[in-house]
């Protein structure tokens, strides 16, 4: 089960790309209430969006992004059948990738 959900929608000749990723986005300053220890930082650092194999967006981020991050982008044009691929990599080296075809 991938951690990434992608939805696309046609908007006035453009294509809106929305993505929801399930990720804790811990910034390392929160305490675990039961053990009273700091929860180690765990957050997405880089998110890339590719359209038909070409990277169209690279987002560098810190832990200032909410838990289970949501992003939306607006692609100029976009045709049914175009492939959108979204990748992320976090500070612990975990990564995930998801492919979506515009309908």
């Amino acid at each position, binding site marked *: 089960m991938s951690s990434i959900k992608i939805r696309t929608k046609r908007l006035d000749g453009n294509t809106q790309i929305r993505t929801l990723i399930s990720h804790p986005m811990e910034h390392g300053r929160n305490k675990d209430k039961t053990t009273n220890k700091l929860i180690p930082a765990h957050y997405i650092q880089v998110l890339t969006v590719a359209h038909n194999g070409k990277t169209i967006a690279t987002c*560098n981020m810190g*832990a*200032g*992004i909410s838990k289970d991050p949501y992003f939306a982008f607006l692609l100029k044009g976009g045709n049914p059948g175009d492939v959108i691929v979204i990748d992320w990599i976090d500070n612990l080296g975990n990564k995930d990738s998801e492919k979506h075809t515009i309908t």
Partner: protein
Amino acid sequence: MKVNRRKFLKTSLAFGTTGIILLELQLAQAEWVSTDFAPGSFDATMKQLLKGKTIVETDKINLNIPEIAENGALVPVTVTSSIKDIQSIAIVVEQNPVPLAIQAQLMPELETFLSARLKIASTSFVFALAETEKEFYSIKKKVKVTIGGCGG
């Protein structure tokens, strides 16, 4: 930007391998830099982000963020702009321990549009910065937070 890509295409046609190396260099520039996201003061973050470029306040950027956020752990934000040739959008929260929230490099295939959800620790100004080849454009809005975002 367009001239660069044209140049790049020509080079890659002439020297296939050189083209690949160039591409790798381009990718390397967009890499995650730990110092950008290190805890620090707002001024230090801005200095690092601007890289010597000038900053101009503008009303051509539309920063859509609620004036009062009930829950600072989840504040929806949308940045759009009518300025041409924007290369990247950054969102900076003045009072956060790590002020820079996100920096997104947008290729010309994308409209200048970015939507995300932010953590905001306490009542603070939120800045949206749009980078063009020469300078930065910025707009700020105050967001009042009733419950802080640091509780997770």
